[in-house]
């Protein structure tokens, strides 16, 4: 390895110095570092010392300590001075240097590119920071909220994909000079148009009183920052906490490893459950916001998008409003009683608790919803219903309140009609799951489904 490429200081020093170094480094390790002339200019001293370190860092650590002590007497500006008092723990790196002592260290640890380029923190340090963060949050009575962008808080489309019936939107766009209050924006320089979800401004304002918020998107960094400017022009909601796909550690996956908050105090709001494989318990899945036609197409939906229907989600009764209520509920449960010991509270179990209130008191029997081969209790829909607080059963009895079926011809359905019980299709459960509220059963009657009309003798569970 040539000295020149290694350290810029040497490349501009005289050639004799470079040659001298080469010989020093090539000769015996111990002797050369001992005999190292300390009479040189102080700054060369630093660089030489760090150069030695780069070559033999693991072996020479104790030796570096003695050199540090020697160096201290020559200049107090040498940052290694701090390590002579207490060995530096190298909590993290900037480039390939420990940012505390300047030593060149192995670059491991989690990359926090969204804070600054080249910045990494060791896992221990991340844990330490999370603990500090937890205390700070508790004193402010706040939790952590991680927000997805696309289809959650907004919907973007490339201008090229705009359908002719969507062209009218171009005349409705809000100015970029002062984005407050605007909902639809034209971003020519990115060839995009973005529509913010209704209620998003009120949502962010209220949520910011209860949560420290992060953006975590699968878009790239410039896109993420631009969207943040639209949602948060003053930078008061998100600050620097904008995580893009360039900052994630695993491709195509999101994880809380780059979030400086403890997992038991973080809630996530995202439209895609599979993006968070390790944190499903922290996740509130939200219904996708399809404003533009291209968005519907992306998910192979055949229905018309909101822009084509010239309509939009309702502000007060929309999805964000419902989610905000859930967030408020969970937040108040966490800080309930104002007790000192909040360390035992876990936002994940509280979220489960809130969820279990939705269908509390309902006893549900499924009719011809599950394939015969599968164990009913293992079916996802059964699990969802239980998660929502309902009791599930395989056979009807007097305590049953709802029969979930896919067609009218079954025995269980006939029984339900006789006994004046509710008959609904599975959409009733799904809606409760997304809207966090029990839905009126009339809206989910079986008349809305196509009649199957089969008389199969399929054994039903």
């Amino acid at each position, binding site marked *: 390895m040539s000295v*020149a*490429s*290694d*350290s*810029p*200081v040497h*490349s*501009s*020093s*005289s050639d004799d*110095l470079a040659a001298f170094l080469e010989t020093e480094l090539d000769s015996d390790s111990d002797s050369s570092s001992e005999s190292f002339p300390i009479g040189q*200019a*102080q*700054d*060369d001293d*630093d*660089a030489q010392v*760090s150069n030695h370190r780069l070559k033999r860092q693991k072996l020479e650590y104790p030796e570096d300590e003695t050199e540090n002590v020697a160096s201290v007497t020559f200049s*107090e*500006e*040498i*940052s290694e001075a*701090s390590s002579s008092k207490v060995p530096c723990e190298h*909590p*993290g790196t*900037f*480039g*390939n*240097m420990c*940012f*505390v*002592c*300047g030593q*060149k260290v192995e670059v491991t640890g989690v990359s926090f590119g969204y*804070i*600054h*380029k*080249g*910045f990494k923190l060791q896992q221990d340090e991340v844990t330490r*920071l999370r603990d*500090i963060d937890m205390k*700070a949050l508790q004193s402010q009575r706040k939790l952590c909220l991680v927000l997805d962008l696309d289809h959650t808080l907004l919907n973007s489309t490339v201008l090229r994909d705009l359908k002719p019936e969507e062209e009218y939107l171009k005349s409705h766009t809000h100015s970029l000079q002062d984005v407050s209050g605007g909902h639809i924006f034209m971003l020519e320089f990115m060839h995009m148009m973005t529509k913010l979800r209704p209620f998003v401004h009120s949502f962010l304002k209220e949520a910011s009183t209860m949560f420290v918020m992060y953006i975590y998107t699968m878009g790239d960094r410039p896109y993420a920052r631009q969207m943040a400017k639209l949602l948060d022009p003053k930078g*008061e909601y998100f*600050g*620097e906490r904008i995580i893009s796909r360039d900052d994630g550690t695993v491709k195509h996956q999101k994880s809380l490893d780059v979030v400086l908050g403890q997992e038991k105090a973080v809630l996530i709001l995202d439209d895609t459950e599979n993006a968070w494989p390790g944190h499903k318990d922290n996740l509130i899945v939200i219904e996708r916001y399809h404003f533009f036609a291209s968005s519907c197409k992306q998910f192979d939906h055949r229905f018309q998008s909101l822009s084509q229907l010239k309509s939009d989600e309702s502000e007060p009764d929309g999805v964000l409003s419902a989610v905000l209520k859930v967030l408020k509920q969970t937040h108040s449960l966490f800080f309930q009683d104002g007790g000192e010991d909040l360390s035992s509270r876990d936002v994940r179990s509280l979220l489960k608790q809130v969820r279990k209130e939705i269908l509390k008191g309902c006893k549900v029997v499924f009719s011809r919803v599950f394939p015969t081969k599968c164990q009913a209790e293992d079916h996802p829909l059964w699990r969802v219903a239980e998660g929502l607080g309902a009791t599930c059963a395989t056979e009807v009895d007097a305590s049953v309140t709802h029969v979930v079926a896919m067609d009218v011809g079954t025995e269980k359905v006939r029984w339900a009609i006789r006994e004046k019980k509710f008959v609904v299709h599975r959409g009733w459960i799904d809606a409760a799951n997304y809207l966090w509220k029990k839905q009126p059963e009339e809206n989910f009657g079986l008349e809305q489904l196509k009649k199957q009309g089969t008389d199969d003798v399929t054994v039903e569970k």
Partner: protein
Amino acid sequence: LRETELRGERKKRIGMFFHMVLERNMQLHPRFFGRSLRENLVSKLMKDVEGTISGRHGFVLAVTGIESIGKGLIRDGTPFVTFPVKYRCVVFRPFEGEVLEAVVTTVMQHGFFAEAGPLQLFVSNHEMQDGMEYQAGDIPNYTSSDASVRIQKDCEVLLKITTVSVVATEIFCLGSIKGKYLGLLNDRA
């Protein structure tokens, strides 16, 4: 440059800008030959080199002129011709021990990040005057114990470079504001 290097070796490091002659082998496709060959070569050079980082020389800021263009040699097996071009340019290089002004960009518990032109620096909280404390909040900052000094985003600081590190084509520096006359210069405008 030689003089500056020699002077630089002694205690005081002179500035960070150098006006020097560098050489580069430029490859050109025959379609660019003809009357505007030299122009094409120069514009390609500027596009290739301005704004880049050389590990040895630092940030190449601007090409100021062409010293010479050598004879072009045809590369075997291809139609491309390689011209050795000597050019004068302004480079910007950080030195350890150098004192310079920087603008604070991000403040964190461990210290703050600052930039001096294209150079990114980090000043750890161990490298600040005793008594400087980190204050979290909407505008994170470092405040002295008597509250007379507050360093936050967009502040100008005078700092001394303690370590320079070149990683691939990036230059990272660590700095310190622990000395006399170092530290906050102005409040943000």
